[in-house]
């Protein structure tokens, strides 16, 4: 794990508070949608990388970044931004490590969704 991956950095509590207020009873459905979507996107991103399709890789990273930001998973959004940027520059090492980081943080996000501030204590 590198630097920015601690749990408090991963989550932006202000965004989460607003999101809970907004979604109310629909929050769980939203989080579930993210779980399904994000796993799928990460898989597509990995396949694109293997196939050398950088444009598709960037597009998946971009999409994942937006969703992460909206769910208040700020650390994941930052990692996606890193992936997007590495893909744009075609830097193979950077893309590899960014893909790994996004995968790790995605798992961390799913776990975080089970706890406060997403869940009441």
């Amino acid at each position, binding site marked *: 794990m590198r630097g920015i991956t601690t749990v408090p950095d991963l989550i932006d509590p202000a965004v989460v508070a*607003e999101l809970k207020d907004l979604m109310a009873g629909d929050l769980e459905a939203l989080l579930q949608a993210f779980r399904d979507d994000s796993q799928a996107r990460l898989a597509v991103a990995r396949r694109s990388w293997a196939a050398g399709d950088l444009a598709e890789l960037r597009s998946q990273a971009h999409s994942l970044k937006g969703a992460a930001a909206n769910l208040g998973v700020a650390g994941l959004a930052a990692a996606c931004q890193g992936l997007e940027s590495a893909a744009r520059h075609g830097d193979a090492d950077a893309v590899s490590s960014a893909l790994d980081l996004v995968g790790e943080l995605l798992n961390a996000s799913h776990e975080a969704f089970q706890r406060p501030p997403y869940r009441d204590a």
Partner: protein
Amino acid sequence: MNPAVRVLVADDNRVDRMVLATIVRRAGYEVVEAVDGNDALHRFRESRPQLVLLDALMPGLDGFEVAREIKREAGEDLIPIIFLTSLTEADALARAVEAGGDDFLSKPYNQIVLKAKLNALQRMRVMHETMQRQRDEIGRHHARLVQEQEAAKAVFDNIAHTGDLDAPFIRRLISPLAIFNGDVLLAARNPANDLFVLLGDFTGHGLAAAVGAMPLAEIFYGMTDKGFAPAEILREANRKLLGIMPKGYFCCATLVALRFNKQEMEFWNGGLPPGYLRRRGGGVERIESLHLPLGVLADQRFDPATRVLAMRPGDHLLLGTDGLIDARDPAGDPFGYRRLDALVLDLDPAASAFDSVQRAVQSHIGDSGRDDDITLVEITMVAPEAVPERGPLPEGERQGAGAEWTLSYELGPRSLRRGTPLPLLQHIVVEFPELRRHAATIYTVLSELYSNALEHGVLGLDSSRKSSPRGFADYYRERARALEALDGFVRFRFRCDIDAHGIRLDIAVTDSGRGFDYQSLVPGNGTVAYHGRGLRLLRSLCREVHHRGCGNEVEVQLAWDHDGA
């Protein structure tokens, strides 16, 4: 917030779309969701949302392409588009603006910011819609107005087409704007072939003016044709306009009757700029406005008193409306009464006032970009022989069943003061188809007989006073005074005999006056004075003219063969 306002939310990312849709719904809008660019276009066409939220980067059609297409299909409707993007690059923002984006929103979405943006764009949209509606309303209103004006003008043209404006001794200029501004020019000849011209200027523009012009034209043409006197036409026009026009609307007008037979002009001016009577050899007299316009005073206060001026062939009468006076130069200075007066009074007698005034006003206006609003008319007195016949009268049956009748008609003081009986008598006479084709001659004879009986008989006026222009004016003033005080009668006796060979019409007129020494009035004694015209005219039209009694009785005989002699 209006629940009927639909917002299209297009984002391929399900999570973002859910968040966004929730925010928009909670802000009170109805949401239509689209999962990519193609879907967005499809939903747009299907449900016609009023606002659009578009993700910039979507698979298939991207947001920029979708925005361009939506704007194209919206045409002149305003469909505000907010781009959803976490783009920070300036060129992407530029592409969004270029594609027709009205605003941006970046992730993570903030409820308050988005709600404010939606509401602002919605207000803008409503305002645009209101403006469009008002513009369309104004457009429709304008179109209707133009249509109504065209209809009014068509009706007016139908009424006015019988006019005599194309007579060779009338020159006229009426700019289209002048018609719209309520200027009316009417001309017609009465049964005696006198030329009646009415120049009017209605207050108010467009339809109000055109509406007033129609009854005015109808009264003018109808009454002129039947042989009514100017004062009676004016009284009727005033009464009618007062009745139908809204308060504060009226018609400035000049009515002129040019009597070619008598070489004189009768006129009335209520509210128009002065007309100018220019003598052929020099000398100008103003035809001043001495009356309130038509449609202002109640009938009992209305003054239709006309004045009469002697004219000679070649004398011109120039009339114009306010448009001349109001014509402004580029600095806004109106042409004005003084300029007009100075121009006409100082004009070389040989020069055309019509051309000079027109030129002067045009050059005054210059290239100020103002449309001209000018009505100008010039009427020239010509010798009776130079007046073309009136247009063809309705041709009666050439050979009727014949007729034999007598009629006696006596007018007492009240009737004499009331006005001319000629239209009534004329009406009876031309009931007979055989007489209809001689209507002009009959009218002229009747009118001579009547004015002689009234003026020289009942009123005892001395016609020799009309010899000088000065006396001429005095004569008509005296006539008006005497008419007020008169006591007496005029009696007509008609005897008409129409058979297979021809027509014979005897008319005898007796008045209550002292008579006159008719023995001294012999035809062809060489004195061509104004007062001589009446009798000379009678002698030229009638087979026989006899005076009887003490000169208070005159009997004329008119006769025609059926083949026109």
